[in-house]
């Protein structure tokens, strides 16, 4: 039942872009047909997920497939369901949003392509999530990856876009090659490509480690775990915003899914694995948000922030792995459910943020934070949505981000150990790290929200502000509701998370109830409501006081300076300057400042940027060196036929003397 609905949804999503391709590039019929198909498909898919949660039954669909080792075998389980919801939801919202954001009439040359691959991306992701056969998984994976490439390079007439797309393509292909090896190893161990838990005796420690490392690389590249994130920031920045939304919200989560799925297959993982994963999570979390603080491109900032949240998710997973190594089911439950819940939460608020950012960019035509300002007056709804997303992503109550981080905190504190059971106190140090991440996130989002929406416009870009069309605000509203709902009623999704955990650790059948026992989710609801009530009360009081007292309007007090100009506002860069300084050992900020001010200062300029350290100082140099090295081999082919014949002769002698 659920499988069928999901498959139907996949098919509809996959073909949703075709009608547009057949139609003329200027006709708007295509985009409506596409959106209709995509929305229908997504609705069916969501129906399938719902059916699974309500009935809890799943009949795997198994068909023979004549590829060597291939078998068409799909099934929905707790994990798949958790990942399916974001896929279909964001695809639905994104398509609707696209109607207003990427009108066919405004983008005749690439609108159809964009819609086509938006559909295939959805289909690929959904397929890979329900695939139970390695080959099928690989198919979904690559369809997703390639669609992602075409989406990133939607505007390939721009050089920057082309370079970004190229880096992305290389990264994703490396991941695919690692998957080749990984699946081959799995097959060698288990004798088939079926994605089923391996028997402990079937694989040597060496093989297990190889599989683990390969999955870390392959899925880490996709998820954007530091330092494998090199493709991510620019890709999210230059893609159209609803593409960024689905890429950052869902696409990179497929890496997480792969990691979760593969680790669920490997029997009794060694303690080091959990430790490594946890450490990677901490690194991604802290450095991700640190880089985010330094950015002044709105979408680049959000992209780095995705790396941070991936870090948090990975921390949860690491905790769960540690729990499995030490047989602490409570760590498994708290860590993994926190991680899975954060997958959802990040999907919701990050998509929300990207869509709001898109609405800003659509209005102002710039991503440069320091060119914006004061938009809250022109586009109040966008500003409100962005504010909700910002509060949520900082993990602040009463919104959803708090809940998942709360679970992970509980788990991390738990590793200190209590009366019974083993402890792993070094994991507990991740808790302060998480606190640091939270505080940095607050700094980051205070900066971006204020610089974009508050204060006064900093450039004429920001004077073009106008509220976006309902087709763009609507999807954002839905996401806002999701954020608030999860934040206030986490108990509702506890059973869903429980199913996910049970699917990961089959011996934990009662994960759902135990989760509610381990974490006081009811208290979160209560406190959330109390908080809202208190805020309303306080607001009411203030409002009442202001009603009954003299209120005047005036200019901001300039500390006595008579003629302040918009340029004098604190920019996002200046806001971040101290923090960037604190992390300069990792961020390597580049500043372009005038030599020294002459006696009579004239017009001069200063600007600073935080490029991606790993990409600029490790990856690209390595590639250029390789190319330089290879270029030396060209002397072997200088066009003289005599030399060529000599090669043959040498090869002949060499092989004759082989043994």
């Amino acid at each position, binding site marked *: 039942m659920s499988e069928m609905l999901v498959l139907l949804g996949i098919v509809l999503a996959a073909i949703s872009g075709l009608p547009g391709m057949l139609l003329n590039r200027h006709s708007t019929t295509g985009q409506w047909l596409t959106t209709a198909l995509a929305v229908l498909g997504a609705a069916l898919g969501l129906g399938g997920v719902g059916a699974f949660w309500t009935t809890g039954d799943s009949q795997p669909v198994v068909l023979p497939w004549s590829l060597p080792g291939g078998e068409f075998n799909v099934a929905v389980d707790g994990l798949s369901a958790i990942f399916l919801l974001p896929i279909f939801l964001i695809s639905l919202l994104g398509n609707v949003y696209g109607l207003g954001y990427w009108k066919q009439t405004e983008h005749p040359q690439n609108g159809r392509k964009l819609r086509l691959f938006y559909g295939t991306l959805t289909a690929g992701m959904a397929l890979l999530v329900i695939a139970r056969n390695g080959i099928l998984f690989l198919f979904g994976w690559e369809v997703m990856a390639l669609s992602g490439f075409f989406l990133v390079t939607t505007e390939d007439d721009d050089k920057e876009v082309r370079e970004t797309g190229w880096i992305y393509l290389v990264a994703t292909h490396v991941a695919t090659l690692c998957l080749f090896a990984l699946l081959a190893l799995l097959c060698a161990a288990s004798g088939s490509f079926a994605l089923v838990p391996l028997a402990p005796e079937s694989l040597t420690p060496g093989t297990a480690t190889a599989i683990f490392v390969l999955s870390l690389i392959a899925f880490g590249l996709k998820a954007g775990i530091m330092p494998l994130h090199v493709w991510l920031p620019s890709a999210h920045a230059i893609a159209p915003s609803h593409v960024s939304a689905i890429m950052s919200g869902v696409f990179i989560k497929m890496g997480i899914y792969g990691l979760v799925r593969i680790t669920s297959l490997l029997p009794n993982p060694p303690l080091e694995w959990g430790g490594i994963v946890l450490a990677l999570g901490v690194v991604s979390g802290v450095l991700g948000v640190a880089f985010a603080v330094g950015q002044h491109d709105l979408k680049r900032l959000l992209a780095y922030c995705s790396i941070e949240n991936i870090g948090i998710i990975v921390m949860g997973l690491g905790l769960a792995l540690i729990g499995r190594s030490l047989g602490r089911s409570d760590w498994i439950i708290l860590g993994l459910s926190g991680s899975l819940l954060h997958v959802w939460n990040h999907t919701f608020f990050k998509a929300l943020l990207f869509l709001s950012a898109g609405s800003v960019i659509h209005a102002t035509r710039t991503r440069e934070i320091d060119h914006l300002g004061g938009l809250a007056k022109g586009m109040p709804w966008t500003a409100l949505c962005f504010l909700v997303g910002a509060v949520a992503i900082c993990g602040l109550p009463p919104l959803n981000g708090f809940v998942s981080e709360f679970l992970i905190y509980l788990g991390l504190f738990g590793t200190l150990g209590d009366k019974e059971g083993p402890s792993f106190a070094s994991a507990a140090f991740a808790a302060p790290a998480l606190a640091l991440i939270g505080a940095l996130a607050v700094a980051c989002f205070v900066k971006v929200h204020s610089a974009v929406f508050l204060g006064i416009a900093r450039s004429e870009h920001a004077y073009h502000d106008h509220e976006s069309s309902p087709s763009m605000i609507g999807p954002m509203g839905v996401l806002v509701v999701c954020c608030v709902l999860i934040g206030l009623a986490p108990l509702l999704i506890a059973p869903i998370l429980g199913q996910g955990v049970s699917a990961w650790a089959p011996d934990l059948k009662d994960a759902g109830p135990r989760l509610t026992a381990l974490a006081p989710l009811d208290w979160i609801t209560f406190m959330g409501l109390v908080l809202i009530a208190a805020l309303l009360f306080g607001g009411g009081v*203030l409002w009442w006081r202001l009603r009954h007292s003299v209120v005047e309007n005036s200019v901001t007090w300039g500390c006595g300076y008579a003629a302040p100009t918009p340029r004098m506002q604190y920019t996002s860069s200046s806001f971040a300057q101290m923090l960037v300084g604190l992390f300069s050992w990792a961020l390597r900020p580049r500043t372009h400042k005038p030599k020294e001010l002459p006696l009579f200062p004239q017009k001069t300029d200063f600007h600073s940027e935080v490029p991606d350290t790993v990409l600029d100082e490790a990856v690209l140099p390595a590639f250029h060196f390789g190319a330089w090295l290879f270029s030396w081999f060209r002397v072997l082919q200088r066009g003289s036929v005599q030399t060529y014949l000599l090669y043959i002769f040498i090869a002949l002698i060499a092989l004759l003397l082989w043994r």
Partner: protein
Amino acid sequence: MNTMIHNTIHILLALMMPPLLLGIIAKTKALFAGRVGPPLLQPYYDLVKLVQKGSVFSSTTTWVFRAGPVVGLMTAALAVLLIPLANSSAPITFTGDLILLAYLLGLGRFFTATAALDTGSSFEGMGAAREVTFACLAEPALFLGLLVLAKLSGSLQLSTMLGSSLGPHWMTAGASLALVLLSWFIVLLVENSRIPFDDPNTHLELTMIHEVMVLDHGGPAFGMILYGAALKLFVFGAMIVRLAFPLATGYPWLDWPIFVGGMLVVAVVIGVVESTIARLRLTHVPVLLVGACLLSAFGIVLLVR
């Protein structure tokens, strides 16, 4: 019944006492400076005066500017309800309330800073930047300390972690607790923007943190901010007190005076610090905060090694 009464006392104390702390600090400093100084109850008078005043709003501001003080006050007020004061447990207590505490204050910070930036004034921007920056270093220190307490008490409820059970641990793990105490006192100073991090009553905007953030606020809103700040001070003060004197006399009614006394002591200590130490150069602040983190970290390492 008993808890009922205790909770009422808790709430009343928490709502009434905070401004007094400010008064005491001011008085102490005055005495050190050889002045008479303002009356102890001056903060209360200020609050009353502010609430009756009218207000002026900058035309650049939005609703966020008005929301800032409200959120700041209310989050602090809720935080107070999570802290155990005397040996009775706090009115609201559940597993992991320590995390909620930290994040409530975070929410407050988010909106205070945002409200500051709403004015578009570079001075307030500067203040907001410093506030959030220093918080990034204060938070880990706080959590490392909480790790120590959690390890000792084996619980994740502030009421237990800071409860009377803490007393015996001063014998066994005194070193760790002392380290945490020190680092938390530093956190208290920075979170409430006291000297050596910030000088609440200088009027040189460039040097201030908290004060400069609220330059444009006036009237009732400013009153809310002052009161919220006092509550925040009360929260951290209470944590320090619980950590420093967790002793239980056994007579609940005796514990309340002891606690109040403790709070007064803390206030005096703050006053002494403020009047004896010079304000740090802004660039040196992070060093001190990292130091605080290291202190707590060392505390937990001592414990789990």
